[in-house]
């Protein structure tokens, strides 16, 4: 059973959207190529949504569109966060409204140390976890605070990217393949953290190739294929639905 998004074209989403984060009919392009072809879904406050799909399905592009990063260009469509029209904002405004993105290639800023990478996140309000608290969560980062961020090992960089998002006071956390390159112990660790975050009422959208893990964590799931939504429903449902798993997730 799919949950049909509870809004229709033309209505003012701010009034009608029941959801906390509403993505409605977004289309995105890279130059001439048409990547996101009308994606819509809702996320409720405090919920964890797993956004799944094959390589090149458009998951990253969707997250980037929500976080209002320059490219891809959204041609039309709307994104609402807590009655605020995100699609009218640019990326730093979106961030100030509470969007936090952990990008897929981590985007540790070259030339800055680990600590500076974290400090950078705390320049603009609103500020989230303190740096000390983040070091408690990821002791490896604490040990390497003076090391240049980009010389960290792959997994350490991933930790830094997550820590950096938490250093801001976020309402919605967008995670693009957070487990990639992490040792299983650390994955467990991060999973715990995500549950903790959820308890604090933060809404999370997670994109992950390790679909089983993501689905076990998530409340709901949206599956994308070639730029369109092919499934929208409870996470458990995907785990049960053999056909769906085989066709879109190959598990």
């Amino acid at each position, binding site marked *: 059973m799919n949950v*049909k*998004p509870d809004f229709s074209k033309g209505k003012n989403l701010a009034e009608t959207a029941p959801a906390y984060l509403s993505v409605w009919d977004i*289309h995105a392009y890279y130059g001439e190529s048409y990547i996101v072809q*009308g994606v819509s879904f809702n996320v409720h406050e405090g919920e964890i949504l797993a956004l799944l799909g094959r390589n090149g399905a458009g998951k990253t592009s969707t997250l980037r569109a929500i976080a209002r990063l320059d490219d891809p260009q959204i041609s039309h469509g709307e994104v609402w966060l807590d009655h605020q029209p995100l699609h009218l904002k640019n990326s730093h405004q979106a961030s100030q409204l509470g969007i936090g993105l952990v990008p897929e290639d981590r985007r540790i800023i070259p030339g800055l140390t680990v600590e500076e990478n974290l400090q950078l996140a705390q320049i603009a309000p609103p500020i989230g976890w303190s740096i000390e608290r983040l070091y408690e969560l990821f002791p490896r980062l604490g040990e390497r605070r003076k090391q240049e961020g980009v010389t960290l090992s792959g997994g350490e960089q991933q930790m830094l990217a997550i820590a950096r998002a938490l250093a801001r006071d976020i309402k919605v956390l967008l995670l693009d393949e957070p487990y990639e390159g992490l040792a299983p112990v650390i994955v467990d660790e991060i999973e715990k953290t995500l549950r903790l975050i959820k308890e604090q009422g933060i809404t999370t959208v997670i994109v992950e190739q390790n679909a089983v893990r993501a689905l076990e964590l998530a409340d709901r799931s949206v599956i994308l294929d070639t730029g*369109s*939504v*092919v*499934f929208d429903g409870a996470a458990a449902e995907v785990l049960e639905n053999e056909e769906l798993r085989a066709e879109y997730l190959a598990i």
Partner: protein
Amino acid sequence: MFGLDKKDTTLLLVVALLTLLAPFILNPFPTDSGLAQFNAGYPDLMQRFVIFGIFAIGFNILFGLTGYLSFGHAAFLGVGSYSAVWMFKLLSMNIIPAIVLSVVIAGLFALVIGYVSLRRSGIYFSILTLAFAQMSFALAYSVLTPITNGETGLQLTLEDPRILGTSATADGSIPVTNLFGLEMRSATDLVIGPWSFTFSAGYYVCAIVMLVAFYLAIRIFRSPFGMMLRAIKSNQNRLNYTGLNSRPYTLAAFVISGMYAGLAGGLMASMDPLAGAERMQWTASGEVVLMTILGGAGTLIGPVLGAGMIKYFENIFSKINDNVLHGWFAWMPDGIEDLTVAIIHPFIGKGWHLTLGILFMLVVIFLPGGLVEGGQRIMRLFSRKKATKDDKSKAKQPAE
């Protein structure tokens, strides 16, 4: 044809046609009309177009393909010119030995400078090449005057000890550069009605050399070597871990483009046997950079267009003066005429730099790919019909 694919063959043929018909194409206005000012079809300027075209094509092999931005390429052009003039002074007025020597010497010069400069990349490389060129310029202007004749530039004199040839002609002049007897300065005029077209031997020699140079550049662009160079620009690191040594590739590209510059320098001296130190100054190096970017770096034809554009402004716009303007607008009522002239005045004659500066900005702002992109946009305008603009039909509705 010529070992090129269809697109490149067409390009080559079009360029060949344009160059060979340049005396007509560049002289569209009748000689007596006011617009004759805009005619560019006289030997010197046509030669300059193709010579700087060669220079820019060569520069583009380095910059366009590898991304290494040399800011000292004019040094090779200068060295080429000096070698050629010395060849005229010492050996013969035939241009072949002169051009051969200038290419060889410029190549050697490039080998040395390239070997050192290519130890660094990015801006550090640019500054190294700049420093070498500026040193060459400063020395040529002062300390090396015995070789370069300093400020005045190296010229032929009546006392040159020419081994194969005479020091002076029978009537007491300096002999003229030639190609096995074909004098570079000779030209014939063709008058058709009010039009007059000049066919200059020198121009056609340059044009043919340029076509050969252009053809070679296409081959290089399309060769595995060219692909390696593009790979260097894209990700040098990856190339090294793929088992390829990027140094000899960049050095080869550097030397080849240095030789192109030397060829241009040699040709320049062959058309007009003088070699001045300013040819090596940073502004001259900067000029070829601007030509290449203006036309479109990394494209085949772009640099030639850029070179033509800049030389056109330098030689045509700088020569328009108020007198000429008044001539053009004489048909207007006096007050309006003066006003029009006053408005245009800052942009012509001594203001040609201003116009050029504005042009640079306009091109780079509106045509990020240079003049070539301008051309492509025009082409696209014609083939627009095919492009489907209806995005919505493709857009799928959210899953139900």
